[in-house]
């Protein structure tokens, strides 16, 4: 569990209503017509009790031991009665529990899966068919007629520890002391989608058309009027309720933190409580394409299943396929970004550090005319990578916002590390130029030598690059994405840095030396050793990852099942290439054969390693199965979405699937 940071930076000043004058509030009040209304949302005439928030005696702390009174929690650094300025309206609601953490209460026993909550939400928030702040999926089990289906309606859980807020590089998220609402501003968001990765509940919604994220706003406008959120008010099964967290509604007797299909509440401490008293079969399956099913453990909780013999819910059978076209995804730019950045850092490190360490052949290379071009190639590679990563954003022109949350977001730190690396590398190039023979031939040697400055920036680039890579790795260590949350990510990233960097760097260096008639075999040995060690690191990571995924009991195992079936042949090709390369490259190093054929063999090894890394990285992105809520047969079913795109159904907007853009 991560610790809570209750420090407040916000000293957002101003007395509510001061800056907008009283006229606005007056007009708003008059328009709503409802008694006691503050003009943020019009209360229906003859509104029923079910729609109003209950006034309750709140508990002191929640199940996780955190204070429910948010002013208390934050040491009263923010005033009571602060305006939220919803739609710039300074009105303040009169709810006495306004500063208590609120949350949804879901009686799973009662949900009929009628979609009224989803429809009410989409209508109120004017969401198009392909977006939903709230979705209903289900798990089912039993045998006819002893069949049980449990519907689960899920939106944002306005968590105690909002990982979305921490992950967001742009600081688009705010957790408010009013109701504890976690709100996100789409106009700040630049559409990286990282919050959609880290959220275990699939609450933030990335709109591929608008290129930005939006999410459940807890209907704070309704809350300010004393009304429950629209979805709750619309519930027809008496399943969904809302109030101060831990308050058990009338006629309900439980406030559990989990139900079958719900991801572990330990990740974020979600503010949702459940009642689920009806007994369910010991095994519950999902109807969507995710090969995950759930099994009741000794304590009565449902865990994703891994059965050694009949692994998971084998929706895809056991046959192995290539599915090469499916390797291409929305994350393609990230495949290119990570690989090229890793290659650049590796190649740069080989050339710069090798020379600094006094390795003869690399010193000779540093003195050669090709040193600066290799640095430029690295610069180009990392620049290309950053460009690709920017183009991956929904709103690339807002890229500069990517450093706004250095305090918490690994995405920011990754970006900053790589950007500093690139900057230092650039300056290293600039200050290396006066020592470059080609440069001096053209521009003369009048500038003098800046070797020390070049070395300074050269040394600066090394930690920057490594820190960048470290946080690149941290970006993927997401609890809600168990397939990624393994040290294999670091092994793969650093392994690729070594192997691909050694291949590109070694290739340029060896060719340069060879063409200038100098001794080059020692470089081949150095680069070859690094290449082999990089491949070895990656292979070890993969081996342990494979072993872990085979033994684990979470969605990562399901990803691994897809890896071994849907992409089975592709996966084995990658593994064979890597294994074969390791054997051949090690033999070459050990035998120390010296011929032109060896150079060709190394080239071949390098190229196949590039291919194997690219396949591996693409698999890494397409395979991940988040810990999201179960979907339905069509809605929130990845399998159907892919199918609808394939057969053209997605071209009709009312199908609710956005056609492929990548």
């Amino acid at each position, binding site marked *: 569990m991560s610790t809570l*940071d209750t*420090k407040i930076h*916000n000293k*957002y000043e101003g007395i509510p209503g001061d800056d907008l004058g009283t006229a606005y509030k007056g007009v708003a009040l008059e328009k709503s017509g409802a008694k006691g209304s503050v003009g943020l949302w*019009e209360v*229906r*005439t*003859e509104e*029923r009790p079910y729609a109003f928030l209950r006034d309750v005696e709140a508990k002191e702390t929640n199940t996780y031991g955190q204070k429910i009174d*948010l002013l208390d929690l*934050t040491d009263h650094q*923010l005033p009571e009665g602060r305006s939220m300025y919803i739609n710039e309206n300074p009105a303040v609601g009169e709810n006495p529990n306004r500063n208590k953490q609120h949350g949804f209460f879901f009686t799973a026993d009662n949900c*009929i*899966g*009628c*979609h*009224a909550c*989803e*429809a*009410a939400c*989409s209508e109120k928030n004017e969401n198009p*068919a392909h977006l939903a702040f709230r979705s209903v999926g289900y798990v*089912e089990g*039993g045998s*006819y*007629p002893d*069949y049980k*289906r449990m519907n689960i309606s899920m939106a944002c859980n306005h968590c105690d520890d*909002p990982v979305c*807020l921490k992950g967001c590089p742009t*600081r688009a998220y*705010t*957790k*408010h002391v009013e109701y504890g609402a976690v*709100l996100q501003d789409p*106009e700040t968001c630049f559409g990286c989608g990282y919050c959609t990765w880290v959220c275990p509940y699939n609450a933030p919604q990335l709109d591929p058309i608008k290129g930005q994220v939006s999410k459940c*706003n807890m*209907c704070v406008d309704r809350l300010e009027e004393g009304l429950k959120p629209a979805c709750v*008010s*619309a519930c*027809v*099964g*008496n399943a969904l309720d809302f109030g101060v967290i831990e308050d058990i509604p009338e*006629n309900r007797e439980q406030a559990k933190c989990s139900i079958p299909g719900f991801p572990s509440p330990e990740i974020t401490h979600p503010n949702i409580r459940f009642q689920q008293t009806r007994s369910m079969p010991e095994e519950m399956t999902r*109807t969507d394409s995710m090969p995950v099913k759930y099994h009741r453990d000794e304590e009565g909780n449902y865990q994703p299943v891994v059965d050694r013999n009949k692994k998971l819910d084998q*929706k895809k*059978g056991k046959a192995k396929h290539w599915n090469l076209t499916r390797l291409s995804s929305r994350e393609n730019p990230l495949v290119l970004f990570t690989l090229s950045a890793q290659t650049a850092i590796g190649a740069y490190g080989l050339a710069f550090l090798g020379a600094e360490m006094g390795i003869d052949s690399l010193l000779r290379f540093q003195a050669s005319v090709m040193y600066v071009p290799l640095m430029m190639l690295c610069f180009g590679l990392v620049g290309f990578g950053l460009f690709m990563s920017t183009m991956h954003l929904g709103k690339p022109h807002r890229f500069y916002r990517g450093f706004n949350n250095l305090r918490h977001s690994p995405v920011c730190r990754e970006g900053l590390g790589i950007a500093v690396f690139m900057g230092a590398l650039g300056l290293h190039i600039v200050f290396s130029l006066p020592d470059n023979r080609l440069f001096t031939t053209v521009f003369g040697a009048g500038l003098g030598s800046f070797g020390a400055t070049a070395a300074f920036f050269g040394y600066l680039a090394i930690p920057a690059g490594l820190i960048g890579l470290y946080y690149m790795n941290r970006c993927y260590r997401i609890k809600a994405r168990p397939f990624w949350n393994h040290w294999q990510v670091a092994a793969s990233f650093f392994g690729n840095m070594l192997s691909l960097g050694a291949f590109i760097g070694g290739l340029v260096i060896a060719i340069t030396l060879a063409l200038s008639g100098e001794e080059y075999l020692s470089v081949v040995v150095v680069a070859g050793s690094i290449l082999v060690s990089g491949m070895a690191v990656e292979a070890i990571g993969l081996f342990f990852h494979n072993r872990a995924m085979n033994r684990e009991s979470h969605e990562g195992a399901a990803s691994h099942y897809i890896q071994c079936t849907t992409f089975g042949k592709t996966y084995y090709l990658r593994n064979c290439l890597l294994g074969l390369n390791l054997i051949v490259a090690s033999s070459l190093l050990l035998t120390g054969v010296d011929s032109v054929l060896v150079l060709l063999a190394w080239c071949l090894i390098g190229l196949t390693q590039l291919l194997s890394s690219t396949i591996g990285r693409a698999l890494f992105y397409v395979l991940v199965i988040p810990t999201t809520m179960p979907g339905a*047969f*069509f*809605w929130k*079913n990845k399998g159907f979405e892919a*199918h*609808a795109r*394939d057969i*053209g*159904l997605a071209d*009709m907007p*009312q*199908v*609710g699937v956005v056609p492929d853009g990548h």
Partner: protein
Amino acid sequence: MLFGRKKRKPISIPQKQVTEWKYSTCNYCSTGCSIELGLNDKGKVITSRGHAGADVNRGKLCIKGLLEHELFNSSGRGTQPLMRERFHEAFVPASWDKALDHTADKIKEIQNQYGRDSFAVVSTGQLLTEEFYTLGKLVRGCIGTNNYDGNTTLCMASAVSGYKRSFGSDGPPGCYDDFEHTDCLMAFGSNLPEQHPIIYWRLKEAREKRSFPLIVVDPRVTMLAQFADIHLPITPGTDCVLINAMMHVIFKEGLEDRTYLEAHTHGLAELEELINDYDPITAQHICGIDEDTIRHVARLYANAGAAMSIWTMGINQSTHGSDGVSNINNLNLVTGNIGKPGGTSLSITGQCNAMGTREWSSCSGLPGYRLLENPQHRQEVADYWGIDQAFFPEKRGLAETDIFPAIETGQIKGLWLVATNPMTSMPNTSRIRKTLEKLEFLVVQDSYQDVETNQYAHVYFPASVWAEKEGCHTNTERRVNLTRNALPPYAESKSDFWIFNQLAKRFENGHVISFPETAEEAFNEMRELSKGDGRILDISGMTYDKLEEAKGIQWPFREGQMGLKGHSRLYTDGQFQTPDGKANLICVDFVDNNERPDEHYPFWMNSGRVVEHFHTRTRTGKIGNCNKFSPTPYMEMNPDAAEALGIEHQSYIRLASRRGDAVVMVQLTQRVPRDMVFIPFHFHDCVNRLTLGLLDPYSRQPAFKQCAVRVEPVDQLEAARLNAERRAF
């Protein structure tokens, strides 16, 4: 960081800039929910909300109602009248005058050449009651064909027929308030959470206040079945065996209300004799419910202080639908559960105004539950309309399901379809396709130009929809409710009311009979016609303003009646609409005429509704936030059966029946038994390519839910292509 930012982030939530709320009643199902439409300062409908003050829905709406205001501008709406000589030619836009003139001429030409009844009219349950009444005037009073029916034959005809046979009149005797009083509720083939979510909510509210047994009879484990205290997974088509066996137990154990039976019913001796043959031991092998459970349920029902039954298509859409309804009525008469709070036989109706068409459209008779077969009724209506009573036929003509075969064999040459889509909704699509090809003249009047039946139309009338018009609906519990006109008709479309009025002007009697300009004036005519001693369908006390103020009033509501509350229940005094005021106990013997699964076609084919769609998807198929929950058809199949055939979840299969084939995506679930598959009926070119639709002998309603199919493998790519091609929306 957690609580706030140095710089405040804006909180933007869509605001509904509503300047006026217009009162309306939902135009989808028959629950009768009150909706307020929110208009902005430009008169555009921008949002809607349930009316919290309405007794029916108390502010709640289902997914369809919540999004209903989006349909006004949805794709596929008809923009102008269209005409063509032959159905395989392209449509040409026409003026309303030209289209109406041509239509009137063609109707007269066909009638002159082949006889008055050679032109048929099939209407709907979707129009407003004033429109139904006007259409009835036009068809019965001006055009004069006797082959006039509504598509309610596909959904409610069995309930109508069963009610008439038992109680002497149509009209559900109960109401939603009965949930608050009942001690036992038995649901036959009715899945409220999916089909009538708001009625389900009323039931749920009652059950949260006070627990009472819920018994659900359904071969599928629906959500309601899952929530039931007792679920009876019955063998399809055997409900009358179950009910007879229950009555057998009740009589054997002396649990019947003999005083009530003797005072208020006919046919007790015959019924007792019949049910002698239905002992639970024999019955269990037919209906699939074990004898202990039959006895238990029978005792539970009979011993309850008040017990009620509800049913929907599981009863109505079968070969003995009318019998099934009568038998449910028998059960309630035998246990003394008619006309008392919590004790009733409540048919849960399908379409928003199925009741309105039953009451006022003259489809199966004359306005106000009057019968063509009754000379006095003919005289009353002829006098009121100012025409010769001899103009009316003395007997009801063909039902919708008999009109199509009559087209097929050439007795009927012309057809006018009003807001109905037989190309998707009728059983055996290929036969309907062949039938429609034979028409010399087909008029399709619909809000949607892309309604599949339009493929065969010669003239297309674009009709306006819902609150583009004004008028009433009657809901399941006999509540008349108002829809105010909220916005003008879409493009060049016109209200159905206007279209009927304009067409009437083109017939001789159209100048004799009064066709008022406004719906409210038509409503006032209906009020006049509803008056009469002992008439239950009396709306004479209602006015538009009262309806809006009360958010709906249940009939009977007689002129001079004080307050705004009608009658919640019928037959509270034990007086029925039969000549001597006694209800009829109808003997229902089990006849097994269904196409049952066999070695060639080993699966029962069942069909039904999903909550996000309405009927043939012409409306909900275009509203993304409805349609996305099932944008393409699917079939529920038992995983054990699938495994034996090597069929995978979410793959395509081909289904074949003795009528045709269909391609559909498989959803494996234990919700259905091993020998049954289930497909939602909403999709064009899907389940009704397979259905047989044997007709009920009384109601002429087709048995959509019982036929036999087999499952064949299919090339996945080819199937996917077909599936996509068959989804125009």
